[in-house]
């Protein structure tokens, strides 16, 4: 990984690795932020957690077999995403079963990691750290472009289905009665989350992608009650977090970019939580529930 301590801010853009990072990061941030809004709305953060384990194992499996990490990454996350969708959010078995399955998947990934590390030589250590914690500075021009295009594709799809997805997420029985294919939409959505997980792994790594899915969306939801405003805001905040992470890491090369991104995203969420707590105190809190029992 080539890094140079920055002396001037505009020098930033002269370095190809920075340009690539920002290009990929914008696509990844936009996709993850917009999709993340729905992940939080639909209370499917746990699925993101599961997908992060799968992303890790998928990428390392590909590396262990000598293929491009992204191949294993995307195949695994999309397949499991769709699988989770088919299994259904309601019929979710208890946390012990789910946790055991995904812990085992992680264990499998550790095996692939060992195989990968011993099978080849040289910068293997870097390969697996990249999968774990991201490698946004290590992208070539074509990799960055691919990431940006995939990100754009995800953005187009999620914007197209945004309205029916909001309806189906908030008010499923009525949406179904209105002819929205809620089940199909739910499955396709989780497939989309899989794609985002794979994308985000390149930027912040499998272990941290949950934060990029959850924190900007959580912050946006706290900052506004208008669903579509929160939707766009979530995307913008995610892009901002990635950009700041890249910037900070450029200026202080000891700080990994994924840490910077996560720190910013966490700060956004914490700030939004604090601000909304203050705002809610001014309005009479609590509700008068008339529900009996």
């Amino acid at each position, binding site marked *: 990984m080539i890094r140079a301590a920055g002396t001037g801010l505009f020098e930033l853009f002269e370095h190809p690795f920075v340009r690539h990072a920002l290009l990929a990061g914008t696509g990844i941030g936009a996709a993850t932020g917009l999709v993340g809004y729905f992940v939080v709305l639909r209370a499917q953060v*746990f699925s993101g957690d599961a997908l992060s384990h799968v992303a890790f194992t998928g990428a390392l499996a590909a590396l262990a077999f000598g293929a491009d990490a992204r191949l294993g990454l995307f195949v695994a996350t999309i397949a499991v995403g769709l699988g989770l969708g088919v299994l259904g959010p309601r019929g979710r078995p208890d946390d*012990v079963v789910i946790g055991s399955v995904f812990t085992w998947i*992680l264990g499998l990934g*550790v095996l692939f990691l*060992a195989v990968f590390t011993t099978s080849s030589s040289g910068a293997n250590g870097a390969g697996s750290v990249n999968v774990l914690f991201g490698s946004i500075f290590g992208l070539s021009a074509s990799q960055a472009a691919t990431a940006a295009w995939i990100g754009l594709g995800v953005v187009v799809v999620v914007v197209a289905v945004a309205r029916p997805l909001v309806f189906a997420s908030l008010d499923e029985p009525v949406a179904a009665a209105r002819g929205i294919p809620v089940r199909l939409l739910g499955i396709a959505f989780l497939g989309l989350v899989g794609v985002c997980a794979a994308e985000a792994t390149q930027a912040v790594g499998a*272990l941290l992608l949950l934060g*990029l899915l*959850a*924190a900007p969306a959580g912050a946006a*939801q706290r900052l506004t009650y208008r669903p579509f405003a929160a939707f766009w805001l979530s995307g913008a905040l995610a892009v901002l977090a990635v950009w700041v992470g890249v910037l900070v890491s450029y200026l202080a090369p000891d700080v990994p970019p994924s840490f910077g991104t996560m720190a910013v995203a966490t700060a956004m969420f914490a700030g939004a939580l604090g601000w909304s707590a203050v705002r809610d105190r001014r309005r009479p809190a609590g509700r008068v529930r008339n529900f009996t029992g």
Partner: protein
Amino acid sequence: MVMLADGGFTWDPVEDVRRLLEFHFMVNAFRAGTIVAVVAGVIGWFMVLRRQTFAGHTLSIVAFPGAAGATLVGVSPLLGYFGFCIAAALAIAGVPRAGARGTSEESAVVGTVQAFALACGFLFVTLYGGLLDSVNSLLFGSFLGITDTQVATLLFVGAAALGVIVLVGRPLLFASLDPDVAAAHGVPVRLLSVVFLVVLGVAVAEASQITGALLVFALLVVPPATAQVVTPRPLLGLGLSVAIGMLVTWLGLACSYFSDQPIGFFVTTFAFAGYLLAQVGTRVAGRFRARGARTPLHTGIPA
């Protein structure tokens, strides 16, 4: 990876055990593994019963920046493990319902906290110049280089935690199964919750040192869950949980030593296999039973 066993696995058990214990670090590994398996087996049994597996998972994630941070500042990682895990346990205890999986927003908060904790751990490792191996062993476990001090600490702290459990075992069981009735009987349910979370923090810190921060589930959740699938009876369940944990750990250590593959993989695989076996076994046994099958203890959070 260091080539540990020359010649690998023979099929003579006596010879294998001798070679397994040939080196002092392996003896230590087995000692540490056994202690951890016992502690995790007991405390994990209560955790699964109380449906706090999610809290346990979050606590284990915190172990990573704890150990890495300690190394960065130059103190013993043990301090980092126990310090961070216990502090996080108190934090969870301070926020009501923070241990259970709640609304979508709570999930978003927990997901963010987990990711941020891992990011911090990564930062610390990068700052002290740790290589992949550091990250690897902190996240996925390692049994190399366990010192006598470490074994002694694990034993001492683990015994203290178990002592607490033995002391409050019965009221804790009561409060876990039926908090409202227990409270009516004068059991200090809230205090016990806090005490238990701290003890859980200790168990998590111990288990992380063998399985790594990310695979703690394999010792802390899966063997107890397996035991609870087989029997709802507390003493039998506790014993079974510990036995399964020890078996899984020993087999994991042995396989890892002889095959040179990571211990995390073996421990998770054996634990999971045991769980599946128990599930299948009880279903098959249930069909053969003459009277109505006894329903096993429900092990998870209801949907």
